[in-house]
């Protein structure tokens, strides 16, 4: 009588539910979201329309979706590589910040240097900054066995404080009316806008290309296979001679580099300078995107678009319906819970009734 609902192991993972679970999670989030809107005294249908349809019903809105989805997908693809292999980098927000600092620092140092090489150089500096920040947890894990979850997260706070010091102190724009921000980057260090009247910038197709490259690496490269094996069966991997430490380094440097690129692209794209609030938590939301996208590049791009919509939707319902912006955070948290719960159906069937006596099944 104790187990009225019980789980019965499937023989093998359900391929249907691997992809149906995220859809069901989205659906359940919408259902709970409607209830939440109703509780706040708003018409749920109107609110859902405001949250999920209105923001993307204009060309500008659709491009804004891409502006927000690009960093999410870029970071999530990197994180997914580590998550597959059991390396938990949750400090992407810090690596994003460091990437913005190094790329932005170089952009400020180069000043008005006029060369087509400026943009590649500052982008590379952003990637290297993110990598360097991720190298610290990699070193601490491989040399001292320190848990990368905790170290990468602690470093996020350190990176944000570092950025705060730079924009309040040495890098503050002398002509900036005392605002905590740097001088605007020179036009040569800016990711150019591709579509007049929008913020659709070069960083977005660049993110697409990078994601494709990572996908090719994972699907075709030997390193992708090693990561998969180490995640599924670390002992088998060890027997095969795959070295755990190399995978820790690889996945942290890759995810750190991509987060750094995303960070500098934010600074050099929609923002155009360094300021304390560079990212609305992209590095953390990307964790949700990675899981929602099944740690697979195609899924991640779709999930990034959806999560980008929750940012836009939150802003829209705040503006037009007076709903709190914090709804976005609630939605983002809910969806991951529902996803984890729905994922149970991949490995198990849910049976109603008493558990069969031992030995019967």
């Amino acid at each position, binding site marked *: 009588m104790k187990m009225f609902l019980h789980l019965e192991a499937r023989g093998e993972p359900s391929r249907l539910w691997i992809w149906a679970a995220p859809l069901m999670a989205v659906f359940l989030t919408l259902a709970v979201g409607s209830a939440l809107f109703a509780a706040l005294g708003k018409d749920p249908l109107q609110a859902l329309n405001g949250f999920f349809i209105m923001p993307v019903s204009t060309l500008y809105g659709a491009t804004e979706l891409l502006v927000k989805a690009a960093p999410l997908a870029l970071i999530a693809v990197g994180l997914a590589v580590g998550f597959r292999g059991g390396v938990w980098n949750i400090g992407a927000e810090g690596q994003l910040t460091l990437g913005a600092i190094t790329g932005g620092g170089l952009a400020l140092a180069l000043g008005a240097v006029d060369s087509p090489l400026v943009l590649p150089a500052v982008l590379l500096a952003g990637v290297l900054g993110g990598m360097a920040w991720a190298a610290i947890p990699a070193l601490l894990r491989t040399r001292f066995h320190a*848990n990368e979850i905790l170290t990468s997260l602690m470093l996020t706070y350190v990176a944000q404080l570092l950025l705060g010091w730079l924009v*309040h102190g040495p890098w503050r724009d002398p002509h900036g009316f005392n605002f905590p921000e740097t001088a605007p980057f020179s036009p040569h260090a800016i990711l150019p806008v591709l579509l007049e009247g929008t913020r659709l910038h070069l960083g977005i197709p660049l993110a697409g290309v990078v994601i494709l490259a990572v996908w090719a690496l994972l699907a075709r490269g030997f390193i992708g296979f090693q990561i998969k094996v180490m995640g599924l069966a670390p002992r088998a991997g060890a027997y095969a001679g795959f070295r755990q430490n190399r995978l820790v380094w690889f996945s942290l440097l890759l995810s750190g580099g991509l987060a750094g690129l995303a960070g500098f692209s934010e600074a050099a794209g929609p923002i155009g300078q360094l300021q304390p609030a560079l990212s609305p938590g992209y590095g953390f939301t990307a*964790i949700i995107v990675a899981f929602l996208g099944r740690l697979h590049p195609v899924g991640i791009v779709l999930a990034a678009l959806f999560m980008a919509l929750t940012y836009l939707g939150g802003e829209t319902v705040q503006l037009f319906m007076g709903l709190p912006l914090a709804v976005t955070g*609630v939605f983002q948290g809910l969806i991951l819970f529902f996803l984890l719960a729905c994922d149970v159906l991949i490995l198990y069937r849910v049976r109603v009734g008493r558990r069969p006596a031992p030995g019967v099944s």
Partner: protein
Amino acid sequence: MEPTLASSLAEAGAAATALIGAMARAATPLALAATGELVTEKAGVLNLGVEGMMLMGAVSAFAVTVATGSPVLGLGAAIGAGMLMGLVFAGLTLSLRTNQVATGLALTLFGVGLSAFVGRDFVGTPLTALPGLSIPGLSDLPVLGPLLFGHDPLVYLSVALIALVSWFLGRTRGGLIVRAVGENHDAAHSLGHDVLLVRYGAVLFGGALCGLAGAYLSLVYTPMWVENMTAGRGWIALALVVFATWKPWRVLLGAWLFGGVTILQLHAQGLGVQIPSQFLSMLPYLATILVLVLISRDAMRVRLSAPACLGKAFHPEH
């Protein structure tokens, strides 16, 4: 001569009292949260949602205290909120057997979002801090009085809870069962112990203490509500459990050490040290990394002191 000596002694005493008091206030939320997480981990469950549970505790305590005027009800609400969050985590990881790391991260992300949502109307609302304890006679003693008996009740509660947990885990049958479940859940199951029930209990206890830790922040430490006001303390508490090698009294030691680091940060500025405030604010995070590295470099020691089934799902049918 005499009066100046006496007055400088009194001055030094007052300074020491203020220092110890500030240290206690910085240490108590860490001690509470880390003690809760320690019990959860002793039962073999790794809950990375400490930060989320603390935030929900902080916002619930603040909202209820503002609404009712009663900090006791506020503390109760925080405990309830922490336990509810724990229940969500336990339901997912224990009954639905989801990955504990992913679920813990989800709990933190959800707690950040939901607490910001719940607390949106309370940003900027003032609140008077919980008063310090006042024991007639004892608290009025010169120097020793305020040093030992002048803190707020939760400081003493955190010490008492650590003593209780230490006694429970080390000296009672119930504690033995919790440890057995954490060390080898299959063996505990074979002996007839209800592994899931014990783990549900441990997660709920952890949730209650994390909620209380959050309440301490929003009612005592800085009596106000700000989004994300825990500022990583939940993660520092997780690191403290490793630092303490899963021993309750060392959690207290670690929490007070971190309290000291925090104080250093506050007082360095008062003493006119020319270091930008951002660098001083980095100290607790850098100290956490340093401490983790120092303790983890001896991999064998951590492996031997960590509960053997930590983070592993229990499948009763096997």
